[in-house]
């Protein structure tokens, strides 16, 4: 147990410090090369460096590789490779605008390391009722899981600090759940993601100094998805990100097709004092943010706080679910 605690402290520190220290350097580098995008929710022409995914990649991969030296198991190797592949898909989308189907299809291939390394168990665990063995169905679940989490996290990257704050809360909840279930190695791997996103949140929170870009957001999602699979906590992981799932669900049920977010009408517009309000446009999709501002306009910071409160609520439900895993009726 002592070795696990030492490993947890070291890898958490590597994940946090490397991103905390490297991101300011990356900000200067991106600004110097004019790799910036307009912050659509700010008055004037505020330009923000992007993609911050490079710094997230360094933090997550460095900490996970260190963890692999402590625990050389195929599950951690699968996390490392899938995270890098998730980043690669995102960075292509950052550099070149791809169609709506690009990310889901390419992210499905990112699940290959999990299958090739055999880093999964085909039992699906549910609270209160036990587990069910579904070998064939589980293979399909693995292939679908990474595109779903990758796109779900990417779809909430709409305001300053939302995706990094959301990932921090969800992955801390998942790490606690893994510790409750005594899956310590993967719990520590999840801490790497939690501390990496926490360090990035420092620069991404309102007002953002850097955007993660698709590379950062998709990598957050892909890493979260692979941890859920190799940690055998798929149901708990889904519960911890329910607000993001609602966002995707509302979006898909109003748009009724898979489409790149740049192609659709903005579900919100701005008031004179630059708060966000629900758009009057017909056929604009419903989203979580649109629901939050449906009654009255809110500032970007207020909306971000509301989303993070929802994430905390889901995180608590996920932890309760982890406790329920030990109870059989």
């Amino acid at each position, binding site marked *: 147990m002592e070795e696990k605690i030492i490993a947890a402290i070291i890898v958490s520190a590597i994940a946090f410090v490397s991103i905390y220290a490297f991101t300011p350097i990356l900000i200067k580098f991106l600004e110097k090369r004019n790799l910036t995008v307009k912050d659509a929710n700010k008055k004037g022409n505020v330009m923000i460096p992007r993609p911050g995914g490079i710094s997230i990649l360094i933090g997550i991969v460095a900490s996970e590789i260190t963890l692999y030296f402590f625990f050389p198991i195929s599950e951690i190797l699968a996390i490392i490779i899938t995270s890098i592949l998730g980043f690669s898909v995102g960075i292509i989308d950052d550099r070149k605008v791809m169609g709506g189907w690009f990310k889901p299809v390419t992210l499905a291939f990112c699940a290959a390391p999990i299958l090739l390394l055999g880093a999964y168990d085909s039992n699906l665990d549910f609270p209160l009722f036990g587990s069910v063995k579904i070998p064939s169905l589980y293979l399909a679940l693995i292939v679908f899981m990474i595109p779903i989490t990758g796109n779900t996290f990417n779809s909430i990257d709409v305001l300053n600090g939302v995706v990094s704050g959301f990932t921090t809360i969800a992955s801390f909840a998942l790490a606690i759940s893994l510790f409750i279930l005594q899956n310590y190695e993967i719990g520590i791997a999840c801490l790497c993601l939690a501390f990496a996103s926490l360090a990035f949140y420092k620069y991404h929170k309102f007002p953002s100094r850097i955007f993660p870009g698709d590379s950062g957001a998709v990598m957050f999602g892909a890493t979260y998805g692979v941890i859920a699979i190799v940690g055998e906590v798929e149901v708990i992981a889904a519960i911890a990100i329910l607000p993001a799932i609602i966002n995707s669900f509302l979006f898909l049920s109003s748009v009724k097709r898979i489409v790149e977010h740049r192609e659709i009408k903005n579900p919100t517009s701005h008031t004179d004092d630059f708060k966000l309000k629900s758009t009057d446009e017909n056929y604009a999709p419903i989203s979580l943010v649109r629901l939050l501002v449906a009654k009255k306009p809110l500032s970007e910071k207020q909306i971000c706080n509301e989303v993070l409160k*929802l994430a905390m609520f889901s995180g608590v439900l996920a932890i309760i679910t982890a406790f329920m895993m030990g109870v059989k009726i």
Partner: protein
Amino acid sequence: MAMKIYSFIFVMWVLIIIGGGLVVVFVGPISFSKDIEPIITSGVKVFLALFLIFIWVFILTKLKNWVFKTEVKS
């Protein structure tokens, strides 16, 4: 509105637990005689699981329309 979203999340959580229970209790134990190929058994389980997901999405869609239609029309 925030309260409605919290309620929606809570209902989703309950539906996940109930759906999981149905899968474990009814779908998981399904098995046919030894003469039948295991792939057919898996196919039946996949079909039933997809049917449960369809019901889950259907309930959520109805719930979404009921909860949010007064606030947002799209």
